[in-house]
């Protein structure tokens, strides 16, 4: 059973807004850019090495930016 705060025994179900904020926070922390800028650069193919761990760590959160 999911509670009102989205927690369920060690599980947090994020809202769409919480997901976007998480992507933004991680992009700023690891790459020094906003989530929106990361999404733009990713889809434009502007990362020279997309498999570089700091880039991929943020890229794993891309579905949260939708």
């Amino acid at each position, binding site marked *: 059973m999911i509670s009102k705060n989205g927690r369920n025994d060690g599980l947090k179900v994020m809202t769409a807004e919480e997901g976007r904020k998480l992507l933004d926070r991680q992009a700023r922390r690891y790459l020094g850019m906003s989530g929106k800028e990361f999404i733009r650069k990713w889809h434009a193919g502007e990362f020279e090495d997309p498999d570089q*761990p700091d880039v991929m760590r943020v890229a*794993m*959160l891309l579905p949260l930016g939708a």
Partner: protein
Amino acid sequence: MAGATPAEAVQSYIDPIRKALLCVTAAVLHVRAGYYSAGEPHVLTLAGGAPVRLKGPSRITLSVFQHYRVVEAAGTRGPWRVSTAGYYYALEEYGGNEIVAYHWHPSSGVRFPHLHLLAGSRIGREELQKAHLPTGRIAIEQVLRFAIAEFNTVPLRADWSDVLAETEASFEAQRSWE
């Protein structure tokens, strides 16, 4: 992992992962509204993608990201099941460099499952610092067992070995990789 509904399939996918992770950390798993079928993969992370400190003398942290999809399936695997669509598991030094990272992100970059030996591993040879060492697909239990056995991570429960064996066997029996 199968279920009568998308939500049930997701729950049966997440529960063993949560149970396995509880062997080494009480950190919360984050998912975003992943209880439905969609074209884009859903995201599961430990602690919102933040490195989580593990107990033990090696002073390491754990990062976990997974992508999964909810799909319709026939037979005993249906009518709904969850398929793993990618992962990123890393062990890092406290507050710093990644040591090892297991990646599988088939939709971008290097598409086969691979291992990175990063700055925290203190590997000197340049080729290896940048290498994508091919691996099979890695289950989260394998990473947790690796952290306990090789990095002296202190498990949070005495029966961790049995728990990891149980959750891994459950995953192996029903696993579905894209």
